[in-house]
């Protein structure tokens, strides 16, 4: 099983393997289903974690995503790629979660404390490795501003931005995943990047 970061560049052989794997899982082969999960679960968890910035919520989305895949796999008809079908499930779950947060205004990622601001994620996840030279270029102040700006995007803008910037999906695929047009996804990305540029313009 081969799964690239974007899920896009897969060899023909790997595609055939995946089709066989899905058919086996549909026929009730538990090992095949588990292999499918292992092929994609890191991407799913990373997407949920990056979007929701909460390990608990990411964990819930992970469970719910693969339970839904398990319960609905027989309805998968190969009309689209498995990756697209899976991402439709996980993005819908994440969007629901983001929208609920907008209503509840709960669990801010960055908390104000007596000692300054504290990122809830800092203690429980790994940001890009410290060995990444890019990271060293940016002060904590800029990272804080980026996080705040990301949190202020609308759920749809946040989702499109996540899929394009961090998941490296092309806008056409993003449109397929979110059930919209490439043009609408492009407009969403445009608004998101405009907001990022406006917020970060003074810092870079």
């Amino acid at each position: 099983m081969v799964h690239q970061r974007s899920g896009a560049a897969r060899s023909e052989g790997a595609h055939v393997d995946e089709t066989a794997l899905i058919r086996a899982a549909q026929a009730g082969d538990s090992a095949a289903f588990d292999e499918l999960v292992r092929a994609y679960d890191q991407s799913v968890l990373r997407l949920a974690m990056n979007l929701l910035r909460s390990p608990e919520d990411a964990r819930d989305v992970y469970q719910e995503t693969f339970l839904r895949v398990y319960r609905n796999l027989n309805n998968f008809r190969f009309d689209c790629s498995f990756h697209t079908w899976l991402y439709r499930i996980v993005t819908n779950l994440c969007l629901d979660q983001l929208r609920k947060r907008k209503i509840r205004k709960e669990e801010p990622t960055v908390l104000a404390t007596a000692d300054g601001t504290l990122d809830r994620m800092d203690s429980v996840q790994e940001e890009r490795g410290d060995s990444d030279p890019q990271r060293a270029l940016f002060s904590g102040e800029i990272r804080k501003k980026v996080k705040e700006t990301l949190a202020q995007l609308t759920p749809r803008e946040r989702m499109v931005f996540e899929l394009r910037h961090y998941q490296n999906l092309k806008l056409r695929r993003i449109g397929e995943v979110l059930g919209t047009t490439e043009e609408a996804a492009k407009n969403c990305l445009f608004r998101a990047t405009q907001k990022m540029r406006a917020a970060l313009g003074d810092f870079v």
Partner: protein
Amino acid sequence: MSTNEREEMRREEMKCQAARDQFALLLYGELSFDEEERVESHLDVCADCRRALERQKAVHAAMDAVEVRPSPALLNRCRDDLSELLGYERQAQTKPGWWEQFASSWKINWLRPAGAMALLAIGFFGAKIAPQLNFGGQNDYQAMGLLGNSRVRNVEAQPDGRVRIVLDQTQQRTVSGTIEDQAIRALLVAAAKDPSDDPGLRAETVEILVPGAGSADVREALVFALENDQNAGVRLKAMDGLKTYAHDPAVQGALAQVLLRDANPGMRTQAIDLLATGPGGELDRRVIGALQEAMGREDNTYVRERCQRMLELIKASSEIY
């Protein structure tokens, strides 16, 4: 500065703004060949925009720096939780009997639309010819006295959007009507509560009933199945059908029962979500008691933690509002 010079400057500014608006898409490689060509032509002659593009690249790099990646420990916990939940799911699945194999050969999504027609075929023991009767209203149906002495043996989907119900009775008849007919619904409600060891019958019945969950009698049957059915698949279908009625007190009571008593942790997990999410996605504080009690008796780590998180959320929410 002359008028012409000012206009020329405004045109240049517009060109610059138009080019800068495209920078993000340029960096993502999402511009068409022609669009990219126009931006690059402008960059060739505009030093300000070249500097602006460098700033845009810095913004991109800053965004890269906040990407989070889940730790291997979190991934392993997720995999362990999922493995446990899938284990219960697999256990809950019953082996398909002859009827389920037959039913699975028909895709029954077309049963879902409200107002689906129902066709009743009533088994006539030993008879080879069955009189066919069509029923459009409850008076006809009730006149047959079917409800008093019949028992639903089987239900199955028909390609035309109708359902076929086989009843054990002393004679065979075929009746048809809409699912809105009270008598038809009464038969389906009876089938949903059928005590025989035939989960396939009850699962299909529940699925047929779900679009009618707006009616109190149908909802009561779904609640009964959710609370009492021995088969997790049937209970799951009933719970799915009641999702939009999670604010109904009877449904909330059933969900609390699921949370406290259901043997399937997947069911309990879903019950937490439904209990805690009322209309509009806001938390419902009436579930606190059930969640607290579940915390005390829950033996599944994941479900217990989920209860705890939900209680914490409710607490946080009550502090906000």
